[in-house]
């Protein structure tokens, strides 16, 4: 399951579709599980009439969670030492997201990765980095 330093090189990439046609119901699921009930994620009346957005949109942390799913699929379970992101664009119902990890360094039993999650239009929604323990 774990990555091996001997089989990795800088520039290697791994890409996964992390969500296809994001549903409002999945956003509701995330609100319930995370405890973040901000109505801008689930309440269309409030979001369009009061907050001034065209529709509800996903929690940044849902997009980070989707990005993290790809990451743990790639590096294995319980292997991460760091994971950080910037939320660069909002994610809307109906979006399909792809995450790409690129190896930027391999040292001291660790791999460093650059992460980018983009939507179906190629627009970046999350950019970040992660570090994970790897085997020799």
């Amino acid at each position, binding site marked *: *399951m*774990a990555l091996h330093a001997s089989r990795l090189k800088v520039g290697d990439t791994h890409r996964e579709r*992390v*969500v296809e046609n994001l549903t409002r119901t*999945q956003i509701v*699921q*995330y609100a*319930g*599980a*995370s*405890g*973040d*009930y*901000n*109505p*801008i994620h689930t*309440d269309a*009346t*409030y979001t369009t*009439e*009061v*907050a*001034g*957005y*065209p529709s509800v949109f996903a*929690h*940044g*942390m*849902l997009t*980070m*969670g*989707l990005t*993290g*799913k790809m*990451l*743990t*699929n790639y590096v*294995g*379970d*319980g292997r*991460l*030492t*760091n*994971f*950080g*992101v*910037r*939320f660069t664009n*909002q994610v809307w119902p109906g979006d399909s997201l792809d995450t790409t990890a690129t190896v930027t360094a391999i040292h001291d039993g660790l791999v460093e990765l650059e992460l980018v999650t983009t939507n179906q239009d190629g627009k970046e929604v999350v950019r970040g980095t992660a570090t994970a323990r790897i085997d020799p």
Partner: protein
Amino acid sequence: MAKITFPVEASHIMMFARAIGDTNPVYHDAAAAAKTEAGGIIAPPTFGQAVAQFDPDYHLRPKPGQAWFGSGKTPSGVEKAPSAGGLHAEQHFEYHRPLRPGDVLSVEIKPGKTWEKESKRAGKLTFRERIAEYRDQTGALVLTARSVGVTTERPVDQS
């Protein structure tokens, strides 16, 4: 800020993993998880954020008997709803070990830096950093989370 007690439970991990669409058995199947390198059920890497469930004062959860800023009879239940409101700008986690069912975490959240920036898409942006330290039942630091929230002057322009 007061310390929050965050009991980590298997059913909560299962629901969180479902919400992010992650079917990895290490998050819901104890027998399968026991045979993996993790040695049992662990939490997904962003699960620490669910500490909000255990914060008695969390402002983004409706509370019985209190007005809520989302819609009911009217588009907002409060007179002065936060207009553009706050958005999440950045999130960083530093992991010392995975969170597991049965952990009882003590979480201390401290304010960090504050700064401002001008943006074409949303006017004046005010950034606020928060650092959360998660310690386990033995006092060991298991997770550090740094989040940056942003308050925008107006809704983010979508064009």
